[in-house]
């Protein structure tokens, strides 16, 4: 054993909470052991953003990412591994406060959310809160499966499970 250390074991990760706070709102929180300027940079620098937004562990990949991070600026991200079948994701930044707040629209369809991310720094750590507000309850309900389209493998298992539950004998 390595004995006592000041830092937590590497395997420990901060918990991610997901809460549907209303029919149209989804709130996700997570702490990061770094100042807000560092976390903010990872959200606003395309070559960094591309490395985490589509985690390999979920079988996702990003082909390209362009970001013009200022109010009224746009972003465009292409998901996928084959340019011929890329899934585009695009919209406009509507609020940009460096190291504190970032908000954007999502414009691939009328069902897109407005996403607001706040970076609250305390004692050198950052509490990140991501809030998605959808135009309707149906848009948020449907997005559960929309997100799954981009991540085939592991999410497929849950989809199967969901399908099983949906057809199970528990219906009145």
């Amino acid at each position, binding site marked *: 054993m390595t004995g006592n250390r000041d830092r937590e074991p590497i395997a420990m*990760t901060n918990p991610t909470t997901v*809460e549907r706070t209303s029919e149209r709102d989804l709130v996700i929180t997570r702490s990061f052991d770094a100042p807000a300027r560092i976390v903010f940079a990872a959200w606003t620098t395309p070559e960094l953003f591309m490395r985490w937004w589509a*985690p390999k562990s979920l079988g996702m990949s990003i082909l390209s990412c362009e970001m013009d991070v200022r109010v009224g600026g746009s972003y465009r991200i292409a998901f996928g591994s084959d340019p011929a079948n890329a899934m585009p994701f695009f919209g406009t930044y509507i609020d940009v406060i460096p190291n504190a707040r970032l908000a954007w629209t999502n414009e691939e369809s009328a069902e897109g959310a407005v996403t607001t991310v706040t970076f609250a720094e305390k004692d050198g750590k950052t509490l990140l809160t991501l809030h998605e507000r959808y135009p309707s309850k149906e848009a948020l309900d449907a997005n559960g499966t929309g997100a799954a389209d981009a991540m085939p493998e592991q999410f497929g298992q849950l989809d199967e499970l969901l399908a099983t539950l*949906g057809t199970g*004998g528990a219906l009145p």
Partner: protein
Amino acid sequence: MVQHTHTRFDTSFAALSDATRRGVLEQLGRADASITDLASKFHMTLTGMKKHVGVLEQAGLVTTQKVGRVRTCKLGHRQLAEEAAWIARYQQLWSARFDALDKIVEELKRRENFDDRE
């Protein structure tokens, strides 16, 4: 209908985080089963299976009823199970993203510290 509480999410998600328990739900989606049936299907002890079923029951995903000496398990509220699966999918996506983001953040921190020492 879609007002949730933290507790319910946490319980449902914890229940769905385990492969055996997801398997049990799938199994019960096909047909009701006794704890003994489930234990033998999943090659587990009765005690082990009772624990798993207990977790699912607490989350409202499964209900059980004891008739004579046999405890029969069936799927709980379908809507609750669907909502839990829906949230679990988000949780899986964002946990994976943020774990990857942790690595970038560590890298940037190291780079900053290195630059400070220059």
